[in-house]
């Protein structure tokens, strides 16, 4: 489901972290910066597709020749620049997916108006985390570990491939535990394109094309992902 082409605007506080995280996985990363220092950092960190250009200039951005399946991530350190960039990108590429970061309540609104598909509000997510820490400290700590950790216990989403042995089975029929993993939730395409947690009390039928989110040790998850491509496991 995810797009293989990622273009990150900004290699500052956020861009650096995201780019490094993504570089471990199979993504085609392009980095755009307007600051010389950050540009150099990106180069030194081993990224090959790094461009130094003036992001306020539409002509310069056009030169990037972005395709519609590229996911754009606007994480410039300067929030004004970030809003402006989101706006220019939207006007240049009406159908492209744009993800922006916001570090204040007012900017979130502006970014949405500027046409970002998804805005992540730094303070909103942090404020929510405070509630989580106060309410359930252990669970919060573990969850964070699961998300960040790539080798230990982690979450993984996988699409049921065509002809998989899972196709047509009810969720209750499959003992996920025996594969060393747990099914957390899924997008059941039959029931609309929204994520449903497994504990919602609905009987799900697994079909090819459904997306499952599982939790478990990374190696077990990988094994399972391979396994579900088979038509029969017995």
């Amino acid at each position, binding site marked *: 489901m995810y797009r293989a082409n990622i273009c990150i605007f900004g290699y500052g506080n956020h861009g650096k972290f995201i780019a490094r995280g993504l570089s471990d996985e199979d993504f085609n990363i392009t980095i755009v910066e307007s600051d010389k220092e950050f540009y150099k950092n990106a180069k030194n960190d081993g990224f090959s597709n790094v461009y130094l250009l003036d992001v306020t200039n539409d002509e310069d951005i056009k030169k990037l020749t972005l395709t519609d399946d590229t*996911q754009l991530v606007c994480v410039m350190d300067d929030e004004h620049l970030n809003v402006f960039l989101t706006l220019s990108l939207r006007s240049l590429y009406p159908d492209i997916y744009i993800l922006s970061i916001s570090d204040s309540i007012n900017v979130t609104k502006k970014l949405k108006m500027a046409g970002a598909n998804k805005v992540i*509000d730094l*303070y909103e997510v*942090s404020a929510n985390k405070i509630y989580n820490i106060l309410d359930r400290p*252990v669970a919060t700590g573990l*969850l964070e570990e699961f998300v960040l950790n790539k080798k230990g216990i982690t979450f993984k*989403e996988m699409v049921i491939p065509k002809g998989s042995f899972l196709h047509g089975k009810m969720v209750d029929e499959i003992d996920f535990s025996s594969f060393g993993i747990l099914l957390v939730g899924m997008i059941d395409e039959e029931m609309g394109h929204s994520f449903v947690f497994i*504990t919602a*009390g609905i009987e799900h039928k697994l079909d090819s094309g459904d997306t499952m989110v599982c939790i478990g040790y990374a190696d077990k998850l990988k094994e399972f992902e391979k396994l579900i491509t088979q038509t029969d496991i017995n």
Partner: protein
Amino acid sequence: MREKLLAFALLLHSSKRYQNYKTFIRGILFDDTNKFKKFFDISIIFLVITSVFILIYEVNHTVPVWLDNYDIFVVSFIFAIEYILRLWVHNDIAEMIYKEYNDALFLKKEFDIYSVIKKGLKQKLQYMITPSAIVDLLAILPAYRPLRILRVFILFRVFKLLRYTKSINQFVDVLVTKKFELLTLLFLLLFIVFTSGMAIYILEANKNPNINSLFDGLYWAIVTISTVGYGDISPVTEVGRAISILIIISGIAMISFVTSVIVSAFSERLSELKEYRIIERLNKKEKFMIICGYGQLTKMFFRQQRFDIGDYVILDNDIEQVNKATKDGYLAINESASSFQSLSKFNYQNTHITVLALTSDDVENIYITLNAKSLSRKIKVVARVNNPDNINKFNSAGADELLMPNLIANTMIYTAITQPTMYKAMHAILTGKSLANIDEVHVHNSHGLIGRTIEEIDFKEHKLLFIGVKREGDFIFNPKGDFIIEAYDVMLVMGKKISIEYFKSLHEGKSYV
């Protein structure tokens, strides 16, 4: 004699019983958390009220003998005992002797017991001349019958009640800050009263039938300057009237001056008094939160309102931020959370305090953490870390939980790119907006689940997904069916909020033996 005194003092000092009694009495008299103090206070207040009531009743009625006796013997007797006890626990002469004696032994110098006793008695005397001690003493005096005039001293018993109000102390405190201005005005007032009083006496003593002594002159001056003007004494000569005009004008000026000084003193201290009230109220609660800094994050925190956070107070050392917070309808005071004095105002020994260090400055946050932890390890600190390089410092400062806004946002973006479906789930869980929750079940030592296996606890039946157990710092993922739950395990489960709450309530506190 010396030896006997010394032996007696050492005996008292080493006597556990004596010390216990003294601590007990001290607790009743001074310690607000002592459970007997409340009863003691109420009885004293009752005695004061009844005795004053008798005094008022006596003006026009004959008081029955038993009431009179009650007034003399019971009330005065109890007050006398209270007075003596207060004097007794004020300091500990026996301990002073013990210390001095040991020091003298150590230094091999001569030990003079009388000088130590003198020092101790001097401290007692110093206590006796404090206002509250004098009030206590005057409240006992009416028991001495032959002095009929002393009956009025019963009114001093009312002053004993002042001990139970903190506002009078605050009032005095405020006036003390304007000591210089008020004293200057007082001297000016005395000067005018004396000169004009003497002038009217000299000028009119022989012409005015109402002025017969210097006291009449002074009385007239006070009545006139205060603009009360009874009119029982009024000047009859031209010069006398001229003096009246002068002191009336100066009286108006002076009164408005005094009023403005007191008002300004109060308005200067108003915020401080308000803060004091806020802190006092919080200190009576079982638990509360101290939120440091009213910045973007704090604002967002309040805006989210996921659940009732209970009692809290915002501390910010920037008065503008405090005003903003107050305007937004939150409880905020202008204090620096990194100052030891500010935090020690809170009742950190008897309440559960959670400190949220949310300022945008790491140095400040570390300082707040250290400050809170140095006051008491019991204070829980959630600290915001802006620069990840400082994580180690926060950990060694003792922060219980760290909050890294950048990391959280970055993780969210990262998840949104790599696992969009997962992102939705994560976002839903993080913001608490979804039907599903990942929550923890703390197995305390009388929990109903202790000793049961995973198989026995039918999670599916409860519409829950059991993810694993955290035991002694390790997380055990999806343990097998024969895994036994132990005390102090933390179970990680996922499910609808109501399912989790129901599951928790089902096993909370029940033990299947």
